[in-house]
């Protein structure tokens, strides 16, 4: 039987790309991001590709959109029974796909638009933390229902991923039928396993999604810390633990993305020494408080969230990443060719420094 992520270690190479319309208009068709990532074909090896689109479900913008892989009918029945108990299902269907010669062994892929149901007692006692409830639901299903895996759980956004080259994955999921204000994409290059659909990127929780190129060397330090806060690192991938770190720092600690970048790609102590006193004090506080959330080793990531995205390199910049802007659209990719492929006459392409976050928020 195929070994899943978490049962074997997989170092990886990879490609990432992201596009965002700063006006917030859902003007970017899925075919654009597919074309972009396709130009970095050789950064992947066909063992994983995926996309995250934001603003793609305007008709169900207020519901959580669960995208789920099922290995068999039993998993689906059990999951739907569970969801039925705690959620009002506004819509459910298979996610539309097309037959593709290079995408094989697909699981059943379902999509649910749901509203959580809370009891009167819970509401009266103001015990409701809706997002925490969603997170616990995702962890419960992914941990305890065999053969079921929720891989997307945000509002008005969705992840589409599979084992295959990213351009094939995009065609398989018919991404040309979706328009978004923001897309991220990933092409994967794991080297030691056949890969698994759930282990492809983006990795997502709530509306946070991460695409990641690199291999972090702080994995176990990060994992040990984050598991203390009830995050379950089932897949044992870098991307999973990075997503949980973001969720913890942003949703639970209330830190903004600028500060999160200073924690996970913290400035060197030598640089802190040279900072103005107030800034040095703030960064020192972060480094001391969240020492275990420093991410070391090579990475370039794009973190998608509702209303924007953040791109970030490791502080030594051991992975490439370039960015550029034209007509209110911001492009970020591992290679310039992936930007030029969809915006040939873009000017002023530049490379952010290691640890320098590029944060783009849409105006709405």
């Amino acid at each position, binding site marked *: 039987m195929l070994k899943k992520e978490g049962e074997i270690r997989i170092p990886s190479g990879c490609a990432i790309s992201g596009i965002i319309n700063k006006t917030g208009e859902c003007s970017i068709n899925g075919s654009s991001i597919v074309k972009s990532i396709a*130009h*970095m074909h*050789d950064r992947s090896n066909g063992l994983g590709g995926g996309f995250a689109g934001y603003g793609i479900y305007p008709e169900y913008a207020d519901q959580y959109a669960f995208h789920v892989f099922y290995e068999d009918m039993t998993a689906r029945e059990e999951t739907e029974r569970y969801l039925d108990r705690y959620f009002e299902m506004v819509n459910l269907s298979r996610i539309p796909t097309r037959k593709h010669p290079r995408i094989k062994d697909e699981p059943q892929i379902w999509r649910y638009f749901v509203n959580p149901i809370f009891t009167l007692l819970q509401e009266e006692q103001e015990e409701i933390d809706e997002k925490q409830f969603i997170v616990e639901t995702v962890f419960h299903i992914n941990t305890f229902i065999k053969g079921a895996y929720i891989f997307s759980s945000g509002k008005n956004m969705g992840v589409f991923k599979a084992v295959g080259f990213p351009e094939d994955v995009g065609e398989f999921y018919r991404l040309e039928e979706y328009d978004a204000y923001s897309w991220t994409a990933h092409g994967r290059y794991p080297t030691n396993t056949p890969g698994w659909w759930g282990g492809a990127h983006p990795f997502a929780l709530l509306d946070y999604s991460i695409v990641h190129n690199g291999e972090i060397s702080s994995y176990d330090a990060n994992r040990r810390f984050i598991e203390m806060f009830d995050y379950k690192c089932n897949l044992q991938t870098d991307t999973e633990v990075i997503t949980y770190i973001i969720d913890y720092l942003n949703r639970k600690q209330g830190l903004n993305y600028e500060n999160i970048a200073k924690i996970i790609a913290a400035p060197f102590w*030598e*640089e802190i020494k*040279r900072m103005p006193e107030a800034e040095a004090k703030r960064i020192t506080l972060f480094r001391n408080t969240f020492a275990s959330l420093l991410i070391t080793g090579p990475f370039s990531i794009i973190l998608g969230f509702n209303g924007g995205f953040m791109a970030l390199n490791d502080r*030594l*910049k051991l992975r*490439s990443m*370039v960015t550029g802007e034209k007509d209110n659209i911001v492009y970020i990719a591992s*290679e*310039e*060719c*992936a930007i*030029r*492929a969809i915006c040939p006459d873009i000017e002023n*392409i*530049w*490379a952010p*420094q*290691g640890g320098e976050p590029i944060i783009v928020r849409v105006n709405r």
Partner: protein
Amino acid sequence: MIIEGKDIYFADLNKAIKQADASEVTVNNIIGQRYIGSGVQGKNLILHGTPGNALGAYLDNCNITVYGNVQDAVGDTMNNGEIIVHGNGGDTLGYAMRGGVIYVKGNGGYRVGIHMKEYQENKPVLVVGGRVGSFLGEYQAGGILVVLGLGVDNSFPTGNYCGTGMHGGVMYIRSDVPPQNPLPHLLIRECAREDLTEIQPFIKNYCSYFNILEADIFNKPFYKITPGGGNHYNTIYAHN
């Protein structure tokens, strides 16, 4: 001979370039194809667009001119020949170069000139017109790195950790201020005009390729950076 570079896989494009029965080959609309020029002998390549990573890797007896930006690891382990880039360079530009010359009109990324080396008459030269990112000349073992800092005022045009692990070769950096926070193992001194004799011909070429006045280059001081004495790495790789 002209080849259309759009929608052609890198291996096929490289094959077409190699098989071209012409000493000058132009590729239009090149976009991300890797290893261009590797294994090509005795040709001039003119590239319009954005060639992919490892452009001119192992380049030998071949010249490349690019009208556009280049990506990462240009000139990786190149042996001889010339690469002229009318645009910016990416990370690890001139990676482990062992001969030949690279001219980049604009900026370079991180780790420019990482592990350049030289042996006897083989002495690579890399000239970057603008600024470069951190770790310039990381583990540099030989050769000449020149950063002109054009368009950069009142700051040293190299990023942090310039010369980390440097144990051979030389850097010439044009700047109106000395380097901030230099690494302790490096010798840094401001050059007199006669100290620049070694790089004079390369600056002349840079100016002629990119249509820049030489007078606009020599209006600011140059700093010469070499590994200091007592450097344990000096003789590990080669007696240079």
